């Protein structure tokens, strides 16, 4: 089948494209970034998803399925860009898809939708409201994109829509929120807190998307890999050490001393877990993760070793 992948040039997008290509699909890629060594069989186009050339792509290629991976987080884009890309871009993907007869649209979203906080339960299910809007306002554009994509389920009933809420990725590409957080030799943590972190290997992301395309299931689904791991254990197993700081010191250090400039609300994600229940997804698609927590952490450690000084 012919599949259009907006956001293909990201680390995960490439892995998804390669896997779908191997499975015999025809891939059309679209991204603002380039993918210079894209394999033959992937037809790359560059540009903004909200531009006229993007619409032309839908018109001329008439893809059967679209895997929408062109969303960004607060870590890589300023707020006005985020709203433009995440909401404007998602709207364009759905409207073009309806206009040009796409049968199946997959929105690849994030599990941080649920938010982290002291009163939030372990193992969120898909029917829960997005607490991230209040606890972490910088995530609100992604939450809005998730809900907007979900509204296609009733607004565009002739088209199959699947909204995926995926956990952090971890693996040898070193891309993603969690992988960036773990990059340095000493990982800042908050003294007296050790939340569970849930992550999946990049190849399992591709495996999950392939499963969705195969069964063409509609609805909103949590997608995860192996069981979650406590942060301190995750830091150790990736060859790093923790740098525990009291809450107020952590808050002060953000953006200083080489610490990332995170919004203060990000603190909740270092104190409290966001853990999701993905049983509904596994039942609906038959998906099973293949990479264990141990192996994902080992591959990350080997790809990004901490150099001894």
């Amino acid at each position, binding site marked *: 089948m012919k599949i259009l992948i907006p956001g293909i040039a990201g680390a995960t997008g490439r892995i998804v494209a390669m896997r779908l290509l191997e499975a015999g699909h025809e891939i059309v890629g679209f991204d603002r970034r380039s993918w210079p060594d894209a394999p033959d069989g992937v037809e790359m186009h560059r540009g903004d998803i909200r531009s006229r050339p993007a619409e032309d792509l839908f018109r001329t290629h008439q893809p059967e399925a679209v895997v929408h991976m062109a969303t960004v987080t607060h870590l890589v884009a300023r707020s006005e860009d985020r709203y433009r890309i995440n909401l404007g871009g998602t709207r364009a993907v759905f409207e073009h898809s309806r206009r040009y007869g796409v049968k199946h649209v997959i929105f690849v979203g994030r599990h941080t939708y649920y938010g982290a906080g*002291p009163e939030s339960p*372990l193992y969120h299910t898909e029917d829960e409201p997005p607490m991230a809007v209040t606890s972490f306002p910088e995530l609100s554009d992604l939450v809005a994109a998730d809900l907007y994509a979900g509204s296609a389920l009733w607004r565009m009933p002739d088209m199959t829509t699947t909204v995926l809420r995926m956990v952090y990725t971890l693996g040898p590409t070193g891309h993603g929120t969690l992988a960036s957080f773990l990059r340095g030799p000493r990982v800042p943590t908050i003294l*007296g807190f050790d939340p569970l972190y849930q992550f999946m290997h990049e190849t399992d992301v591709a495996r999950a998307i392939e499963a969705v395309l195969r069964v063409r299931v509609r609805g909103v689904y949590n997608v995860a890999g192996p069981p979650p791991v406590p942060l301190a254990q995750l830091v150790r197993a990736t060859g790093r050490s923790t740098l525990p700081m009291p809450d107020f010191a952590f808050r002060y250090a953000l953006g200083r001393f080489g610490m990332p400039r995170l919004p203060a609300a990000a603190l909740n994600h270092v104190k409290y877990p966001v853990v999701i229940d993905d049983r509904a997804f596994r039942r609906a698609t038959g998906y099973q993760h293949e990479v264990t927590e141990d192996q994902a952490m080992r591959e990350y450690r080997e790809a990004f070793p901490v150099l001894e000084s």
Partner: protein
Amino acid sequence: MGSPLVSREVERRIEELEIPWGPFGVDPYGVSKKHLAVGFSMVEPLYRHYFSVKVLGADNVPPRGRGMLVGNHSGGIAIDGAMVIASMFFAKNPPRLAQGMVEKFMNRMPFASMLTGKLGQFTGLPEHCIRLLEDERLLMVFPEGARGTAKLYRERYNLVRFGTGFVRLAMRTRTPIIPFAFLGGGAAVPTIHNAVALGRMLGAPYVPITPYGLPVPLPVKLEVEYGEPMMFHGTGAEADTVIEGYVEQVRTSIAGMIERGRVRRESFADQTLKQFRAGSASR
């Protein structure tokens, strides 16, 4: 393991727990084998010697599968919960991990938040309750809530109002309720006043004050009695009047065990006192 902090028996009992440990000795909820081992080793001398806890009816608790331990609060700090958990671990063969529903303020406090979670004690949310029961765990519930821990010394054998949520959750998940009575906590922590302002400064609802100041528990003999399991059939969506009837049955069962325990304890105290007086009179 083999840590100097961990007793041989605790180590053996931890291995007997039916919990699906992952590769790092952590279960899917973050309960940690290592933390349980150290925790139970620290509680063991308190359980066996300091409070010499007497356990009655431990066989009323199902050996495996879902169950809800429901009992009275006794003692202004969490020694009741800790000793009920210890009794399920030390007096039951094979042992079981009782998982309590913790007051929400605990999860905001550094260390308290981390340690409660690693010991399997999660914030009291209905979502946690349902999930743990559906996962065939043993839950520990105090339906008196914070109202119950605030009991003063003279109220130590009283029961305050019960919440009703626990019966609805038990019915919804088809879980047997095992009522229990906890005795002696009120004498171990003889509360004469609850300092609300001091508590607020520390991030807790209140701090119990004893005649000797701080709420350090005295070495009083404690007792836990487990009653016959009770099963209520339905969906859990029944009218309040129906649910309140079931709550009353559980409350009556607990009150009966407390009353029998009180008589037992008071007659024991009377006898000891008589013997003491007889002894001093003859001297």
